[in-house]
């Protein structure tokens, strides 16, 4: 039974839930405009880290062949960069 429930994925779920609540607090307690830029960029980076956790531990890409894993890791980097740049350029 423990092989089903006590896994790295369970630890990842706890971390994902904690990060979700942290982002929510950060996103709701700050002001707007330039004063929120640091908080917004932090929230974007946290989101990218969260999707990496989902990919590695829920989708089992941690144990996948290197090509598949690195395509996913590359996607996380591209997504973070794109969102960060597009947020800042306005």
């Amino acid at each position, binding site marked *: 039974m423990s092989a089903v429930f006590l896994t790295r994925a369970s630890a990842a779920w706890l971390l994902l839930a904690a990060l979700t609540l942290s982002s929510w607090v950060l996103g709701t307690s700050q002001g707007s405009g330039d004063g929120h830029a640091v908080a917004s960029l932090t929230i974007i980076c946290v989101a990218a880290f969260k999707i990496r956790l989902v990919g590695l*531990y829920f989708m089992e890409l941690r144990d996948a062949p290197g090509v598949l894993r690195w395509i996913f890791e590359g996607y996380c980097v591209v997504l973070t960069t794109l969102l960060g740049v597009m947020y800042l350029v306005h």
Partner: protein
Amino acid sequence: MSTTRDTEDVSTGTTSRHVPGEPGLWVLLFGDMALFTFLFTFYLHDRGQNPRLFAESQEHLHRTIGVINTLVLLTSSIFVVFALRALRNEHMRQLATRLAVAAIAIGACFIVLKLFEYYELVTAGMTLTSNDFYMWYFAITALHLGHVVLGLLTLTVLTRLVRSAKTAATHMAFFEGGACFWHVVDLLWIVIFPLLYLVR
């Protein structure tokens, strides 16, 4: 098709690499993720044209429902992970079915909350045509909601398939594929929620 399993399930003492689901499925999954990335990019571009309008419009969204829905999808996803692990053990087939049903039931809560959120917004006068922010909000979340429905239907069909006495390797690969699609649905919402509700 899947050929190996990870070492936590079979104690072979060696590390083996395993493609979850069917390799061809990953083309679709990455394609879907790329499509949403384009949408996120264009959303941020339009937001950059009028940040004040987007920030003001965002204030009318239900951030609490948004965060609850994130936790709902994360919890549904971990139950799918549990179900898959149980499915790999012949003696836990019944438990796997129960866990998969729990994942589907939890996932369905997302739809209920999302529809409630739509109802609240529309009755308050915010619709697809109200302004650019709401156009993006409804377009992105409705497209994602379609994925949620498709994911739940897929999980339901696959749960019935693997419930049968002897789960063939192909059935296992199908379930893994369905599980990965469900995780992509979760993954997309992980970006949609902060982008539409929190970033300003």
